């Protein structure tokens, strides 16, 4: 009967992982809608194509090699089906032995396949961050080629040093030596995505017409704000899976309570970020800026992601609010620096990802500012440098930017040959 209890715990924890993973998968739709809403309509088909194809590429590359690099599970997940056991019965025995050792309230025991499912949707998230920043001017196929390297190699490597527990090229261990702590990936996922995006944007340059002489900045409004808002709601919902699933275990009182707290704090931080961005934009610009407000909610979510389990709801709200305020300032600052990021991805995931990491020691005794800093610098350097090289190679070989004329006509025609809203007359 004890075994039945372990079986139920395994089933419950596996199910929890799958449901949380499905929510994270849904974030892919959120990024697609957010980005499609914030670009011009002549570049919409391409951003949609990028977003859905990168999700497929992430799933395939991570299955082929990424998961092996990060956690070691064999290429192509060859032993996933029964966690390496030769029959369902032996799988059961192995699991029960593991459970007995871990103890009911101990480390989590769940299906390896559910772990892969949960991990793989994270990879896609990291990559989705990039697509928005390079929107409206990058070649489709160069982007997709980058996606293969990012999801199959760059991300898994830094993932192996953090969640994977490996040492960084045998030099040092972020976890053991520095106590680096990143609950659900403010750094590992979000800063990583933003670093790759930054490298791409620097090599790519700004969209034509975005910056004029004498520091003039010409806004390029997004074509469809309802879509951008829908995308934000989707991301908000998906984030419950992102953070909630990162507790990794549900099946005892302490774990279940932690998962619930993570839900509450994730929601509180998003709300705080949204309100702060709304107010800061109101003060700076004298009006309610919907796009900043949306960015603020996402900033709140990114900020809390590094540690959603230890703050009180009030503190979570404040961590989110600081993220929301930061994102407004960061968007303005990047524009001043002429770093053109159509959707604000570098600010939301990069700037605020850093804030999220550095905020961990405020509520978690085990974490230190030095350790957090070591982690963020490692992630940033690795992802930025390798991405820069890959983008550069692509630039040399195939080019990464569409021609000026194609940019005027819209990349939908040049890259996809298909308009997102093709109708001229309605009848």
């Amino acid at each position, binding site marked *: 009967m004890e075994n039945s209890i372990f079986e139920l715990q395994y089933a419950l924890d596996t199910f929890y992982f799958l449901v949380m993973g499905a929510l994270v998968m849904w974030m892919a739709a959120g990024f697609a809608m957010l980005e499609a809403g914030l670009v011009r309509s002549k570049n919409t088909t391409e951003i949609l194509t990028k977003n859905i194809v990168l999700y497929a590429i992430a799933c395939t590359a991570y299955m082929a090699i990424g998961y092996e690099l990060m956690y070691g599970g064999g290429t192509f997940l060859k032993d996933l089906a029964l966690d390496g056991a030769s029959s369902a019965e032996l799988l059961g025995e192995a699991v029960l032995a593991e459970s007995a050792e871990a103890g009911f309230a101990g480390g989590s025991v769940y299906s390896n396949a559910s772990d892969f499912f949960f991990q793989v949707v994270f990879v896609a998230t990291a990559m989705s961050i990039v697509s928005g920043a390079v929107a409206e001017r990058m070649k489709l196929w160069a982007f997709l080629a980058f996606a293969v390297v990012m999801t199959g190699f760059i991300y898994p490597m830094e993932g192996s040093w953090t969640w994977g527990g490996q040492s960084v090229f045998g030099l040092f261990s972020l976890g053991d030596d520095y106590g680096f702590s990143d609950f659900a990936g403010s750094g590992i996922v979000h800063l990583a995505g933003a670093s790759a995006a930054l490298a791409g944007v620097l090599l790519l340059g700004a969209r034509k017409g975005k910056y004029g002489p004498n520091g003039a*900045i010409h*806004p390029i409004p997004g074509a469809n704000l309802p879509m951008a808002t829908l995308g934000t709601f989707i991301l908000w919902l998906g984030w419950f899976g992102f953070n909630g699933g990162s507790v990794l275990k549900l099946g005892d009182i302490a774990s279940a309570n932690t998962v619930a707290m993570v839900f509450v704090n994730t929601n509180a931080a998003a709300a705080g970020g949204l309100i702060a961005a709304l107010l800061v934009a109101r003060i700076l610009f004298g009006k309610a*800026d919907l796009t900043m407000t949306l960015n603020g909610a996402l900033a709140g979510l990114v900020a809390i992601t590094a540690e959603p389990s230890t703050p009180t709801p009030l503190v979570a709200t404040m961590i989110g609010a600081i993220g929301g305020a930061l994102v*407004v300032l960061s*968007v*303005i600052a990047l*524009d001043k620096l002429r770093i053109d990021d159509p959707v604000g991805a570098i600010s939301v995931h990069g700037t605020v990802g850093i804030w999220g990491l550095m905020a961990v020691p405020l509520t978690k005794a085990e974490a230190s500012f030095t350790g957090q800093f070591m982690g963020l610098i490692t992630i940033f350097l690795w992802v930025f440098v390798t991405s820069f090289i890959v983008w550069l190679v692509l630039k040399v070989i195939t080019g990464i930017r569409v021609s000026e004329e194609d940019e005027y006509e819209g990349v939908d025609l040049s890259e996809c040959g298909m308009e997102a809203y093709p109708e001229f007359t309605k009848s």
Partner: protein
Amino acid sequence: MKMITAIIKPFKLDDVREALSEIGVQGITVTEVKGFGRQKGHTELYRGAEYVVDFLPKVKIEAAVAAELVEQVIDAIRGAANSGKIGDGKIFVTPIEQVMRIRTGETGNEAL
């Protein structure tokens, strides 16, 4: 025959159409346009950067009418579209040399 072209504020469209109907104008063609003129656009901020929306939404009305109706039509349009505020728009009168109703092949005033 003359073509009367009026640029008006969009929300005046229904009033103008009714005013024209009342004086017997049986057909008009309407186009959504943007206008740039004395009425200044507004300055907006998008994500912190300023931009000027110079072009304001307007509606263009075209009505081909018999030459003798021109004054009456102008008055009707002006009466309905005038709000006394800047940006109320313009009326242009241009010559038409020929008109044909596609369905019947009628020409001249009968075709209007």
